[in-house]
């Protein structure tokens, strides 16, 4: 069986969970086995929805000790569930949670693991799966040579596919100890979709000259329902908050659309964004290196082009 851990922070299933279950179903089909989902914690809303995306069963370990994240407890819970259900392959989302679990689970389950998988596996005698390496500058194929396998799936690697019907949720009786951690959370990005999950991103760089000029960036993002990002110097000088910094040392993203405004396209910046499906570059310098990585380019002054683009989007909807 393929067991997919569906993340539900605060009781709400994440988009990443629907991607993971869609992926898990395809892996299960490849292996000729069933695909089930597991949720952790009390009060997970609408877990039966996972059935629509490919889970033939949905399980829940409804312990309040799993309401806050603790990689030690989560690993034990998922591994125990896999053992009880006879699952040999576990799929996770490559989120801050999944990244803390992937290697742990691999050790606990004596499994080979690939974290941040970007493609579907192949199984022609040996089980292989691809992932981006060298900060998106190459793709590597990994071979997993153990019976048990753990894979964490990169965000936006595939689209959730709603094909089936809702299923019921079964409680799993698994002993969960108390956490040795106390955790508290605070939000930082307001109403926007968090950067690692965003499908549309509007990003701007040092060419904008100062934080007072970000109004048009936020307006453009607002119209598109996009999340805002920035280059490193912009975050380092405090024009924008650190969590907006994308690139080699910041957040690595792979949205469907990345609009880069007044960013030169240094190699360390590209490292975090070059897996985006479509890249639009707006820069007044036709020689800016970013144009080489772009799908669409506009050579012009951002202070003139961006307001025009905002108007064009407004009048097209």
């Amino acid at each position, binding site marked *: 069986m393929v067991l997919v851990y569906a993340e539900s922070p605060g009781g709400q299933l994440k988009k990443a969970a629907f991607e993971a279950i869609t992926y898990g179903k395809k892996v299960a089909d490849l292996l000729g086995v069933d695909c089930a989902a597991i949720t952790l914690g009390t009060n997970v809303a609408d877990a039966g929805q996972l059935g629509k995306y490919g889970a033939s069963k949905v399980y829940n370990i409804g312990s309040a000790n799993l309401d806050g994240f603790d990689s*030690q407890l989560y*690993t034990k819970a998922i591994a125990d569930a896999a053992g009880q259900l006879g699952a040999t392959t576990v799929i996770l989302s490559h*989120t*801050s949670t999944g*990244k*803390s679990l992937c*290697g*742990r689970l*691999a*050790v606990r389950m*004596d499994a080979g*693991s*690939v974290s*941040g998988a970007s493609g579907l596996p192949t199984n022609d005698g040996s089980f292989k799966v691809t*992932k981006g390496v060298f*900060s*998106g*500058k*190459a793709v*590597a*194929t*990994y*071979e*997993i*040579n*153990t019976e048990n396998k753990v894979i964490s799936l990169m965000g936006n690697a595939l689209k959730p596919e709603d094909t089936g019907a809702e299923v019921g949720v079964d409680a799993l009786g698994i002993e969960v100890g108390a956490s*040795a*951690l106390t*955790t*508290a*959370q*605070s939000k*930082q*990005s307001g109403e*926007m*979709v*968090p*950067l690692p999950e965003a499908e549309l991103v509007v990003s701007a760089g040092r060419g904008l000259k100062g934080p007072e000029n970000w109004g048009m960036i936020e307006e453009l993002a607002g119209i*598109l329902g996009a999340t805002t990002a920035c280059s490193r110097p912009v975050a380092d000088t405090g024009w924008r908050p650190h969590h907006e910094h994308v690139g*080699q040392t*910041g957040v690595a993203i792979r949205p*469907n*659309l990345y609009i880069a405004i007044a960013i030169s396209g240094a*190699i360390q910046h590209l*490292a975090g964004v070059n897996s985006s499906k*479509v890249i*639009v*570059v707006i820069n007044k310098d036709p020689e800016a290196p970013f144009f080489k990585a*772009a*799908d*669409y*380019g*506009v*050579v*012009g002054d951002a202070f003139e*082009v961006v307001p*025009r*683009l905002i108007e064009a*989007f407004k009048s*097209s909807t």
Partner: protein
Amino acid sequence: MKLLVCISKTPDTTSKIAFTNGNSEFDTTGIQYIMNPYDEWYALVRAIELKEAAGGSVTVINVGPATNDQTIRKALAIGADDAIRVNAEPKSSMFVAKQIAEQAKAGGYDMVFLGKETIDYNGSEIGAMVAEYLDQPYISYATKLEATGNQATVERDIEGGIETVNLSTPFVLSAAKGLAEQRIPNLRGIMMAIRKPMNVVEPVGANDPAVTVSFELPPAKTGVKLVDPENMGELVRLLKEEAKII
């Protein structure tokens, strides 16, 4: 406080990425190596700061061949007290984690620091593996760490927010931007590093349950389509009708 910092060696961020041997191996020709930035700038420096404030020691560990000694010396020059090199050419994350965990068990450290990921293979899984081998808590993507006695408070980046975790030692942590500020080794540090102990140990047996078998460069962009800056309606049309992205 007895601290262990895991350091790795990666190609410089500007390296040209190419493959050899039928695309089965990374082409190291002409590659300049650096210490993985997350290990050097954040994990190592924060460990050294804690030692400076509260006493104790900072040991660095690397799993790799003798050619890594230069990178290890740099860590000693920045301020680590001693080093362990596990003499092996690693093929998998699991192998590396097993070696680190063996040394960590033997040393009885209060905290084990790693970088959030290596910038070559972008695994971000060795820290979790080490924590499981040690059966200790693991806090990934730490951006802030305060510790007094055996109590610590860690802030970590999560999607769209920050999580604050309180816990007691021992534990394993991976470092992200914000945990500390990069330190440049000074001449005195470099001189002192020459005499600091570097213990070379042989690896324990371990499996390689997941290994890379081939590489591929992403398809090259077909070239940028330039749009007239006066005509943003055209860009919107292209995004809708050609790219079908919005």
